[in-house]
């Protein structure tokens, strides 16, 4: 199930919130979250529900045993076994076909490529499990003794399919004791509606323009290539950050404080800055569990950067373009850290160059076929195609205000204006409620009669 569906908005969410608030018992509330999360997860793809339950159960048991041997060599062995097991789970389901296909291409073999379906949210929940095991091993948290609470943490529907990747110590306390204050619920509701607006209005409508300009049905022109990638750039951001806003919002309404995942990445002044603002929970995962253990800035920094970015690329997808995309950022970061640290001090120019690099990055990210990617880079720089055509002009005109809204919404300005207006005593309440109601009703209208538009990050 996705948040931006009528089933979720009209039936699932009202029902869950209603049932959740029937009792204040934490056990009851955990049970409501867990059962509803399993229904949410299984909706449309029930085959892998058992995998989720089994993976969480095995790690739940391993963590308890590891906790018992805390500080002893046995705990290290158990951690290693758990990480290997979880990585293998991800490897089998996500990368088997990729590796077999790559071996076939490299060695000219014709091994049969297994057609393994990718379980929903597997990249997110395996990373969450690995981080839990590492935190228990390090003593940052005690192993959870209640399987219900552990399953609530792993399967929590706001974050199961697309993150943010929550660290167990952040939520440990809330799993046992939490209350939803009126302010939390109101903040959560506000955050949810604005996130829904980002996804349904800005992301999906930008996505329509991107598909039109980048799809096979359009003639290739340099203008369409750039405009299409710009729309795709906005689609990715509003899709993922809208989802994260909704996840954080629902979390608040249920009494959990989920981590932030975005901080206006498109106003970044450097690639380093961009990755501090984009998919923050994933960057922190790699920083804490890969980069720093490898030596971080102190030992073999360049190697560590390359390893982290190779893994980041692979995490996003089992395809060579994702590997290339990860290495692209790894190399850019090495160059930036070595030669261009001063560049970010130049305003505007540094913003423009960063966004240029980001758009080029999303181009690599978009094309899973490397030959298509090569051809498309040619189009971006006017090779073998005209500058623009009627489709370019028409799409630009008919989405001009949408594009302007996307640019504006990528900055902190709308949030500042909204917060200022909301702070006004009487007019603020009217304006805030009008905006929230208009966004919600507008989203319901846009979703009516539309085909389902799942979140882009669900596939990772």
């Amino acid at each position, binding site marked *: 199930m996705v948040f931006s569906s009528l*089933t979720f908005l009209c039936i699932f*969410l*009202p029902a869950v919130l209603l049932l959740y608030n029937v009792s204040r018992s934490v056990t009851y509330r955990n049970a409501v979250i867990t059962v509803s999360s399993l229904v949410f997860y299984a909706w449309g793809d029930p085959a892998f529900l058992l995998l989720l339950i089994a993976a969480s159960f095995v790690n739940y048991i391993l963590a308890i045993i590891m906790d018992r041997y805390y500080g002893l060599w046995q705990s290290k062995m158990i951690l290693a076994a758990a990480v290997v097991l979880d990585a293998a789970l991800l490897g089998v389901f996500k990368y088997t076909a990729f590796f077999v296909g790559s071996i076939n291409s490299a060695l000219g073999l014709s091994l049969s490529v297994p057609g393994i379906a990718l379980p929903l949210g597997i990249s997110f929940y395996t990373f969450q499990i690995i981080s839990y095991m590492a935190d228990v091993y390090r003593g940052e948290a005690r192993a959870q003794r209640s399987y219900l609470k552990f399953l609530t943490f792993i399967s929590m529907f706001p974050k199961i399919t697309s993150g943010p990747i929550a660290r167990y110590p952040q939520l440990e306390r809330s799993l046992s004791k939490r209350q939803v204050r009126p302010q939390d619920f*109101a903040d959560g509701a506000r955050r949810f509606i604005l996130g829904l607006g980002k996804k349904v209005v800005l992301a999906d409508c930008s996505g329509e323009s991107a598909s039109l300009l980048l799809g*096979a049905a359009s003639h290739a022109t340099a203008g369409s290539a750039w405009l299409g990638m710009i729309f795709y750039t906005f689609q990715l951001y509003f899709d993922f950050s809208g989802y994260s806003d909704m996840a954080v919002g629902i979390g608040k309404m249920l009494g959990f404080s989920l981590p932030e995942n975005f901080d206006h990445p498109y106003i970044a002044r450097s690639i380093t800055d961009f990755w501090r603002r984009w998919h923050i929970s994933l960057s922190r995962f790699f920083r804490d569990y890969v980069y720093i253990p490898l030596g971080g800035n102190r030992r073999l920094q360049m190697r560590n950067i390359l390893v982290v970015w190779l893994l980041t690329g692979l995490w996003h997808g089992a395809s060579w373009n994702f590997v290339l995309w990860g290495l692209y950022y790894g190399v850019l970061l090495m160059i930036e850290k070595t030669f261009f640290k001063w560049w970010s001090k130049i305003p505007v120019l540094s913003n423009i160059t960063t966004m240029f690099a980001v758009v080029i990055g999303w181009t690599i990210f978009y094309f899973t076929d490397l030959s298509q990617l090569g051809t498309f880079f040619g189009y971006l720089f006017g090779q073998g195609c005209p500058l623009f055509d*009627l489709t370019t*002009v028409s799409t630009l005109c008919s989405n001009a205000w949408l594009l302007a809204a996307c640019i504006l919404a990528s900055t902190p300005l709308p949030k500042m204006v909204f917060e200022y207006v909301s702070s006004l005593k009487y007019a603020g309440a009217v304006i*805030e409620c009008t905006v*929230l109601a208009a966004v919600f009703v507008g989203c319901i*209208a846009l979703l009516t009669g539309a085909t389902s538009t799942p979140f882009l990050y669900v596939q990772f």
Partner: protein
Amino acid sequence: MRKYIVTVLFVLLLAGAAAVCFGPADTESITAENREAAAMPELSLDTVVSGEFAGGFDSYVNDNIGLRGRLMELSGAVKSCFGFTPRLVGKVISTTSDIGTGETLDSSLMLIDSKIMEMFSDKPEAENSYAEALVNIAETLPDGVEMYSMLVPTQLEFEDPLYSNAQDSQKSCIDAINERLGSKITPVDVYSALAEADGYLYFKTDHHWTMDGAYCGYEAFMNSAGGEAVSKDGFERKEKNDFYGTLYLKARSQLNDPEPDTLVYYDVEEKTDLEIVMRAEYEDGSALEYGEGSGVFNDEKDDYLFFFGGDQPLIEITNNDIPDGKTIIVIKDSYANALVPWLVNSYGRVVMIDPRSFEGSLKEEIERYEADEVAVVNYVFTTTFTDYCALLNGLAE
């Protein structure tokens, strides 16, 4: 205080959404789309495990939500705020297209004034397969059976070059396919006939041609086949009703107050004694004849389905006024449905076979009807669907 206001508002919005969802369904908005609303899926272990129930339930909610028509109008209003449409530029929107074969292609529509037109994007590999399929069919024909190929271009091809150049050339595609057909197949030049003609040749909100457009095709066909087309003036021109076609459904959210089409037809049944049999054959060899008493025109339909009630696996039309006339088998997509009402005036029997649903053997049908001619009539977009080409090829087996 504000926290309570926002909380109450959110609860009201969710309650409102639930109320609209469970409220009376807006069946009119579905009827306007010429389809039936999705039904509540069956709840069983099998349907739940396969995911069929969830998918069906989402469709059910989408189709049966209250105020659906109003919400879709609001959706259109929201989208119209995203930009502006310069009068001379028109608007290009993305969509998907399918021809009922299972394959779905990304496609674009061009909206100019009140016309909605599909934009052609050629697929050379599929076009090769199309030509190969026709050549393979020609190889299987008994001696003496003539074969024709008619590929019909669409409306956008004949618009101002400012617009038509935004798509791939349909003419180039048709010419390329015709060049590959070999000597056993005669191409029918319907392109020139349509380019020279004026009038209401294509619907504005539907991807099909009108019966006037189809008459151009009929004349071009008779020119190629060496016959004489009957005059259009000999039949009464009637207007059945206004309607919005299939492209309107895809573009409705982008249109402000679009003009409807008019279903115009020439009453060929009035002057000709026609007898129609519809037949479905199944892979196990069994067959079902149906459609007793049906005619060329289906009065129950208000759109392009008016012609023969839509696509059927096999339709046999006998013209009792030409008892010794020739028999032609037309392998076709829906474009032929407006053409055949003209063709029946020149043949003793016309048999329409739709490869998308026909499961029988073309060879057996040719023998059964002692066909004199075979024509393959499709609109040019059909050549971009690889699975349609595969179905055509299957007829040669």
